């Protein structure tokens, strides 16, 4: 829309700027706090400009961890979160794309039933089924392991549904041409469907990675071994420090670090799937 209404332009920019402020201010404050010594956050006046303790604070967090919270190095927790998020994202995509492939391209008994059963599980997120899931994971001996952290979160009705919708838009003739070209079900999947889905896969990967990264309740339940703590639950534990003031400067430094990987994934993958979108053929 090309319109020339100066007041509207000014107004919409003001609204936009306010929006950016509201979103960015907490992050800025967290960053500022992570660069100050411990006492300046407790003095009652929140500083608005960065202080001089940035390197010191980050080194502490990454090296020895927050003392009051058991001194688990943040590096370990970041790594755990990363592994968990990666396993969840890759696992979800792998399982749901195969499930969608089966549902769209194969005629088997109870096909519709299968689809609806998967669909209904949308109504059962982790939080709802957390106790039975915990029971199962515990009895399989998967507590305190990467498998325990990720496997129960892998089944995904949403991703299955998205891939199904995408496969339905792939012209039927493409599958037929591939059949005539001698591509069996596996080859068709690998040579044609998978490359065609790469944009969808990239987009889903971003969403699912962040979903996995932000998991809180589930890691809290299945990990008791500090070696498997994830960053998001780690931050929460730092707040619960016993008989001491929370070490805000270190908590904020940890938070900043926790935000970094999802941002990197978005930035990196964005280029990939924008490229995918541009290249997309009619």
């Amino acid at each position, binding site marked *: 829309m090309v319109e020339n209404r100066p007041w509207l332009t000014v107004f919409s920019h003001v609204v936009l700027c306010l929006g950016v402020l509201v979103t960015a201010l907490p992050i800025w404050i967290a960053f500022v706090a992570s660069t100050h010594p411990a006492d300046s956050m407790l003095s009652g006046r929140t500083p608005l400009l960065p202080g001089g303790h940035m390197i010191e604070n980050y080194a502490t967090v990454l090296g020895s961890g927050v003392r009051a919270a058991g001194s688990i190095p943040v590096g370990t927790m970041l790594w755990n979160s990363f592994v968990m998020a990666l396993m969840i994202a890759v696992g979800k995509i792998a399982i749901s794309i195969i499930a969608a492939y089966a549902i769209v391209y194969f005629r088997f008994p109870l096909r519709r039933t299968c689809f609806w059963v998967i669909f209904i599980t949308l109504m059962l997120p982790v939080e709802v089924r957390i106790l039975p899931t915990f029971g199962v994971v515990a009895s399989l001996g998967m507590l305190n392991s990467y498998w325990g952290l990720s496997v129960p979160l892998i089944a995904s009705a949403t991703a299955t549904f998205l891939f199904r919708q995408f496969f339905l838009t792939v*012209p039927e*003739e*493409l599958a*037929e*041409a*591939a*059949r*005539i*070209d*001698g*591509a069996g079900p596996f*080859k068709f999947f690998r*040579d*044609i469907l998978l*490359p*065609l889905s790469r944009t969808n896969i990239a987009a889903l990967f971003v969403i699912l990675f962040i979903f996995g990264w932000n998991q809180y309740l589930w890691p809290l339940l299945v990990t008791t071994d500090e070696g498997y703590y994830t960053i998001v639950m780690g931050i929460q534990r730092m707040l619960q420090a016993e008989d001491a003031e929370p070490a805000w400067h270190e908590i904020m430094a940890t938070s900043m670090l926790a935000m970094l990987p999802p941002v990197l994934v978005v930035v990196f993958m964005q280029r990939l799937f924008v490229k995918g979108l541009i*290249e*997309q*053929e*009619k």
Partner: protein
Amino acid sequence: MAGLEFIGVRKTYPNGVQAIHGIDMAVADGEFVVIVGPSGCGKSTLLRMVAGLETVTEGEIRIGENRVNELEPADRNIAMVFQNYALYPHMSVFDNMAYGLRNRRTPRDEIARRVAEAAGTLQLEGLLDRRPGQLSGGQRQRVAMGRAIVREPEAFLFDEPLSNLDAKLRVQMRLEIKRLQRALGTTSLYVTHDQVEAMTLADRLIVMNAGVAEQVGRPLEIYDAPATLFVAGFIGSPAMNFLPGTVADDGSGANLDGVDRTLLVAPPASAGRGRIMVGIRPEHLEPVSREEAAMEVVVELVEALGADSLVHGLLADGGEGAAVTVRLDGARRVAAGEVLSLAVAPNHVHFFDPDDGKRLA
């Protein structure tokens, strides 16, 4: 190379739609057979059964000497060109053509040779690295043809391959397909609902209607002697005029409804003395003086095409006023409301039984 044979082929879809009601025919080795018919008559179904994309409910399809009913599409040694081309969008033109060969474990240099050869024939040399999305419609069409050619199949199957192209390109590709098929000598089955394509491409034509092959024959045979009312109306453009009437008492002609003089062309003896349907193509009506005329037509509408004009009118003295179309020389000017006196080319009058629609001979 091999011929193709249909033996009592029927098709019923799982939802109960009976798409093919029994087709028996043989396609000779190297022959170009066009299947033509209105939408939904089962053309694609028949073709897809040959390709192996649909099961055959009853009967047998043979390619060469072999029954292929149970074979996978890849094992039938056919190649198919789809209406929307069905090129793999993420593969280069080269890979699109090579994919089938790779799956058959053709040696690498053999693939390169065949693709290069096909690209040469189809003028695709400069485009081998492009994706289908970067090609024009006509080029995509060529790539689809190339993908079929490199397989060196026993038979080509075309399902309306030109219907996504604009009119000019369609004429050009039509010629190219014909030339290519001549050069390769590969048996071809070609589905279309465009009768110009059908007439020009076919060695033999199958006119289908509602799952039945109404007539099989050379294009001009079918044009000259359509076997049924349906075929007569379907082949030829503009469509044949159908004028109901009664056989004259002495059998020497027909009294057309709404025409007060007798059409002096004798119906075949098998017509008996009852009702009859007379078919006359628009190009077989000719303006003459009033005395010589077989009928008179009031002009309603004139479509001037340049080379010739299509005149749509109504029988002048008709009660219910049957519609008549005439094809006139383009040089002749006709205005709406004018009365045209028309004579009929006597060798080009067709008689049909109005009850079962069969040609009377």
